[in-house]
């Protein structure tokens, strides 16, 4: 796999991933939205429904926490993760932790990391991790690491994460280099150090020893819905510190369910890869995205934004006010849910605890986010990301 940066703008950068096994001859444009999966499937979405949502090439993000319990099956299957989960046309990307679920804090030990599976906690060391990675043969993966820090972490906690992660990285890197099976898999290194600039700088120093495919800025949060509340300003200095010290030609990844404004600011700062944990979380709470990200949407839009819970980028269709609204979530939306179904029907499904409700929400939210990322790439291409940020920011109440 190859990563190349095509344009660096005042805000954001455009690039692409090429030479990916599963999609020979085709490219994945960056900033790229990797697709959050659970147990190897897009939540609520079967392969045939995925084909109704998009024909784009997609990189499937498979958190180890959600596939851990099938590792022995994947190993005896022998053909790798993507094919095991029935998505062999899609390249896969494995990380140890799950961006959509809060990672319980304080369970990592010695040179091992706690992985919270559906059957409870499992403790994983680098050799076990790399053995699993070898059987999964992902196209991209992140080294085992300890990112158990957030803005409240103590100095002691930060220094523990840094020393543990550098050891884990050293071991995983060594095993990666020695592995024949993984010679075509792209290896990503974490950047740890919480909100401590000095710790970050020290870790970056350490990273210069390794020739890796790219970097994941880790340790800013413990995943889950809390990430939605993080404002860019509170991560800005760490982000800037890290990005300035990274080689420009390497892939930069950041995970988490950032709200659309923070996400855009991270794009502007120069990240290349994100995930769809936000569309998933929104779906799980019965909500549909309604934020606007281009002038056409703005011109034709009349619907009031946001819901009573104060999340400005979505409406909660469980709310009784949608009981008899026989209109799509968004009139201009081209997704299967909006083309075929009304808010009233989705409200009925959600309040009747029918599975199809979440299927339709996930279709809409996923489609909305894919389109959002197309707009983002177009804006960077035209060097107009700042006006896109202003447009999205104007819909947020905290501006």
């Amino acid at each position, binding site marked *: 796999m190859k990563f190349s940066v095509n344009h660096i703008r005042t805000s954001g950068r455009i690039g692409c991933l090429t030479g990916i096994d599963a999609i020979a001859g085709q490219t994945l444009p960056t900033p790229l939205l990797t697709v959050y999966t659970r147990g190897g*499937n897009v939540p609520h979405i079967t392969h045939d429904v995925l084909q109704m949502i998009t024909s784009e090439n997609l990189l499937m993000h498979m958190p180890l926490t959600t596939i851990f319990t099938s590792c022995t099956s994947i190993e005896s299957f022998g053909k790798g993760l993507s094919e095991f989960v029935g998505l062999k046309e899609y390249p896969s990307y494995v990380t140890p932790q799950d961006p959509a679920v809060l990672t319980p804090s304080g369970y990592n030990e010695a040179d091992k990391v706690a992985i919270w599976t559906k059957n409870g906690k499992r403790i994983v060391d680098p050799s076990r991790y790399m053995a699993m990675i070898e059987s999964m043969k992902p196209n991209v993966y992140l080294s085992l690491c300890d990112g158990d820090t957030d803005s409240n972490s103590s100095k002691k906690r930060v220094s523990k994460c840094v020393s543990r992660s550098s050891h884990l990285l050293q071991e995983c890197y060594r095993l990666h280099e020695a592995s024949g099976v993984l010679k075509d898999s792209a290896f990503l290194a974490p950047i740890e150090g919480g909100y401590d600039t000095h710790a970050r700088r020290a870790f970056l120093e350490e990273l210069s020893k390794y020739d890796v495919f790219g970097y994941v800025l880790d340790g800013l949060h413990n995943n889950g819905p809390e990430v939605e509340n993080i404002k860019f300003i509170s991560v800005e200095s760490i982000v800037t510190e890290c990005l300035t010290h990274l080689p420009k030609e390497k892939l930069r990844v950041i995970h988490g369910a950032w709200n659309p404004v923070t996400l855009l600011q991270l794009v502007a700062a120069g990240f290349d890869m994100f995930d769809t944990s936000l569309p998933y979380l929104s779906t799980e709470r019965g909500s549909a995205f309604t934020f606007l990200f281009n002038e056409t949407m703005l011109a034709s839009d009349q619907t009031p934004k946001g819901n009573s819970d104060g999340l400005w980028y979505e409406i909660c269709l469980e709310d009784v006010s949608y009981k008899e609204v026989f209109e799509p979530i968004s009139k201009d939306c081209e997704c299967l849910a909006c083309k075929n179904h009304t808010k009233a029907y989705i409200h009925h499904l959600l309040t009747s605890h029918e599975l199809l409700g979440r299927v339709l929400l996930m279709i809409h939210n996923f489609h909305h986010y894919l389109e959002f990322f197309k707009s983002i790439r177009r804006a960077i291409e035209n060097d107009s990301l700042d006006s896109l940020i202003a447009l999205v920011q104007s819909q947020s109440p905290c501006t």
Partner: protein
Amino acid sequence: MSGGNPSALTYRVLGCCSTSKARVGVMKLPHHDVDTPVFMPVGTKGTIKGILPQQLEELNCQIILGNTYHLGTKPGIDTLKKAGGLHKFMNWPRALLTDSGGFQMVSLLELAEITEEGVKFKSPYDGSECMLTPEHSTEIQNAIGADIMMQLDDVVHSTTTGPRVEEAMERTTRWLDRCLEAHSRDHDQTIFPIVQGGLNPTLREQSAHKQIQRDTRGFAIGGLSGGESKDDFWRMVHLSTDILPKNKPRYCMGVGFAEDLVVCCALGVDMYDCVFPTRTARFGCALVDEGQLNLKLVTYKNDFRPIDSECNCSTCKRYTRAYLHSIVTSETVACHLVSVHNIAYQMRLMLRIRTSIMEDKYPSFVKSFMKTRYNDGCYPSWVVDALNAVGIALD
């Protein structure tokens, strides 16, 4: 009165088995032409377990079922009226059938009491006393707008005996007349009368004879699949189809196990419904000719075959038993995938039945099907007896 209008339902027999009573037909309904014998998946609340209408069309479902009691409670009749009926509300372009709501009331609500006027029950929501009359059931079903609706019948538990059975049978006919009288959309909706009479052959025959005096476009056999012995079950179906007119479709309510479908088709039944295929999917059970696979079992952990290599559904073409096993208890996708397969299984079974009837090879299809299903050769006696009654002898 019903009967005259050709647009609401026309049924034509296309081919018959020369041995048994099995037949193939086409039932033209306002929203779709339905090939019979047909299995109708149940979409209780205006949806079938996480499956999109587009997927149901892909699966070749021509008619699905909605439950009047559930829909009348939620989203409610006012909302359905405003939406323009259930077809529009759920965006299902093909045919629909609704039940009367009576069966659910009697089975779900402990406090239901049946009087000549209707079914009296306490609302599970606010405890107030409500009454579902034949007129009310008809009105709700007219608002839902399904192609086929069912009369409100007086349902007694299938193992009930004594004068109550006769009373229910007689009342069912009186209620039929009230339903037909109240029916306001005879031009595009058809009411099916229901043959009752419990497990008493004389009462069943009487009921069938009474019901066919009403000139309706199709008939149902009700009050079965409620825990009675299979031996009683098939006899009641057999004698009902002997009386029901040959030029009208016959619907046996609540039947959906594969062996039951194969037997009842031989007895001359054209339509079936059952929650079983989709309900069992939710618990990780996949249907195959041999019976079912419980994908939760650790046996499937390293089984990299599809559920059924003969099946060409989207699940079997792509997913292995091992993968389904890995997500069966944790991901809704597992439920969707198994539901798709199970519906595909039912659809393919009905297609195989129709094809073999058209080729006049139904008896040999039945024999080979039963051989696969009971591979130890121990056929249940009711299957043997029922098939014998229509001239099919299992080896």
